[in-house]
């Protein structure tokens, strides 16, 4: 039994930490918490610096600009980013969600074109899966892509897309064969979101950032916009979704920081002279939160250790980790907010009355989006029931 990182990985952590401490000015960290447009900050300059160091695509093959580093290095990189509140929106989709699908399924020519800018931190992507009539049931996408000569022509719309207003590339799943059974008529197409015929309508989330409904009207893109096999997109996507879900394996450090803040707050804040932390419901909830964070870490390491061992994809472990975060996470955010009592409702525009850097009003709302984004809690429970436990449909 072993729970330690290899020594060279700890060395790498020091390097990343030094970078974060030097580059992430208080203004940038503040942006992470409070920027409009993005929940976790959008900063192209930082993304570029991370890319220059090769850190955005640590585990990618060398021939496409990766470092072929171990999964553990990716984990500590993630841990340090999340712990230091490093803005991620400018590279999150390109490096973690869309990029890996390109690595796996694209032609050499497409890879040469699309991947180097991702590894250098120079291109921002959006990902358009969800549609008005296709949320959890992704195989029902209706955005139609029709071949016309060498080109593809797109009509339809995508829903709730983040990042795309600032993106160079937009990763889409489209309906290419409406006659086939629905899983077998879907293809992945990557477009430039500035292509004529695309319009974006902003939708503002309750916690104040931008997602978009994106309309496609006779949008014409070249034939090489298709990634992977035509009509096999849903199966390619299954892998992409797993990559998405096994990314952010260091994300638990953000919750650790929140917990540390909460403990400090509950220790320093008194209720008629008694520190809140001595109140039994507060003490009990804090420990529960701490256990939650520790298990989040261990479930993440479990996935990492299986990825690193190169065996079969850790689908089971990834799904279980998903349930832990999506089903069990929100109650701790609510608890932390409850501990703040009246002040828990106060946000960034009244910072003098908002505890803990005015973070928690937004955290409270963000916990909902966090649970739904990339798959709902019920969806991941279904996955565990059917795939992990083998329960009947």
């Amino acid at each position, binding site marked *: 039994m072993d729970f330690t990182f290899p020594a060279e990985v700890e060395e790498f952590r020091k390097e990343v930490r030094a970078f974060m401490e030097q580059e992430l000015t208080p203004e940038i960290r503040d942006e992470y918490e409070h920027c409009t447009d993005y929940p976790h900050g959008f900063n192209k300059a930082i993304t570029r610096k991370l890319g220059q160091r090769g850190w955005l695509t640590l585990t990618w093959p060398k021939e496409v600009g990766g470092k072929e580093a171990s999964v553990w290095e990716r984990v500590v990189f993630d841990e340090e980013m999340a712990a230091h509140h490093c803005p991620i929106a400018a590279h999150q989709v390109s490096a973690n969600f869309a990029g890996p699908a390109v690595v796996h399924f694209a032609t050499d020519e497409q890879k040469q074109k699309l991947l180097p800018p991702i590894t250098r931190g120079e291109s921002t992507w959006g990902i358009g899966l969800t549609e008005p009539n296709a949320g959890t049931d992704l195989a029902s996408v209706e955005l139609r892509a029709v071949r016309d000569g060498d080109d593809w022509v797109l009509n339809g719309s995508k829903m709730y897309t983040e990042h795309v207003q600032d993106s160079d590339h937009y990763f889409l799943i489209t309906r290419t064969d409406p006659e086939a059974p629905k899983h077998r008529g879907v293809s992945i197409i990557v477009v430039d979101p500035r292509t004529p015929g695309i319009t974006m309508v902003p939708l503002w989330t309750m916690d104040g950032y931008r997602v978009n409904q994106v309309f496609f009207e006779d949008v014409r893109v070249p034939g090489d916009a298709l990634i992977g096999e035509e009509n096999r997109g849903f199966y390619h996507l299954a892998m992409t979704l797993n990559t998405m879900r096994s990314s952010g394996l260091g994300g638990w450090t953000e919750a650790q920081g929140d917990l540390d803040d909460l*403990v400090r707050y509950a220790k320093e804040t008194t209720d008629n002279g008694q520190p809140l932390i001595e109140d039994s419901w507060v003490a009990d909830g804090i420990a529960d939160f701490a256990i939650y964070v520790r298990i989040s870490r261990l479930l993440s390491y479990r996935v990492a250790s299986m990825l690193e061992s190169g065996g079969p994809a850790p689908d089971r472990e990834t799904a279980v980790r998903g349930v832990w975060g999506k089903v069990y996470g929100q109650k701790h955010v609510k608890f932390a907010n409850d501990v703040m009592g009246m002040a828990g409702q106060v946000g960034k525009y009244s910072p003098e009355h908002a505890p803990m850097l005015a973070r928690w009003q937004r955290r409270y709302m963000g916990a909902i989006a966090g649970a739904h984004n990339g798959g709902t809690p019920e969806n991941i429970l279904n996955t565990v029931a059917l795939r992990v436990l083998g329960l009947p449909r």
Partner: protein
Amino acid sequence: MDLGPSEAQQIIKNNARQFLEDACPTEHVREMEEDATGFDPAIWTQVCDFGWSGMLIPEEYGGFGGDMTDIAVLAEEIGRALLPSPLFASSVVGALTVMEAGSDDQKQALLPGIASGESIVTLALNEPSGTYEPWGVQTEATPDGAGWRLSGTKLYVSYADSANTLIVAARTAAGTGPEGVTLFLVDPHAPGVTITILDTIYQDHQFEVVLDGVSVNADQVLGEVGGAWPAIQQVLDRAAVVVAAESIGGAERSLELAVDYSKERVQFGRPIGSFQALQHKMARMVTEVTGAQLLVYEAAWRLTEGLDASIEVPMAKAAASGAYSTCSIEGTHIFGGAGFIKEADIQLYFRRAKGAEVLMGDPRWHRKRVTRLLAERSVPASH
């Protein structure tokens, strides 16, 4: 970082499972609930021959020389099979207490017998308050010539009726703190000792031990007079991890039983396992037990490596007890009326989970310990 059993430990685990499936089916567990001694001497001899009873005892004292991760892995299988035996009471708690508190002579005298299984040594720590805090030790030890006299009531003492030696915690100096707590080696047949079985939910042979002016010699003090608490704390932490591991094994088995039953039981023309309400329950069960198991392994590993585990131990016990409750309570519900009947295996786990939950500290108490440490370690914000 592998976060789990080594290959060698996996072999221990597989062998234990195979043996217990044969030797300890649930009919045997039910039988032992009614049995006067509460365990089968033949099985006990066998598991002692495998080295289980000496697992934690160093080789120089006749043991197997295993560590906390070894016993954790084994305890999972014991929890899964619900093996009725004094293994936990004697070979874990008893052995650890002698190892932590005893002089070398005392270790020489006691450990080989525990390791071979020939002698059963059990700790009498709790009292009617039920607390694992030092204030719970109120049994008095008053000087009497060169020795002492012990008076008080000990409760929840496992297998006291089978024990050759009781290790009794008592106060040699009045108070409520850790100072003044002393351990005594007491013959359960000595005059003034009265042992009465408790009607516990799992019928697992816990006893009330009343000490009425029991006379002990100076050489029956285990370790130092008045200085036993730090050793007791070490024992409690290690034992809590073993109970936690046992709970993981029981929780996993509860889940399996529920999953299997739900695939077969048909209502409304469908297996009940196809109903999403039950599917989501079971998905939560597997998630809780998987997470808690990693935490138990981490705590066991830290103790093995001699790293600070003061926060991991209570976290692990709280999480494992929580997972065992969830899996056994929800599991029993999934069986419907069938789960409530004695013939059902799931109800054995349901009852055992309650016993394991309060053994070596209930989850609420462990969570309190976690928060106390977090508060101590918290530093003012730097910005």
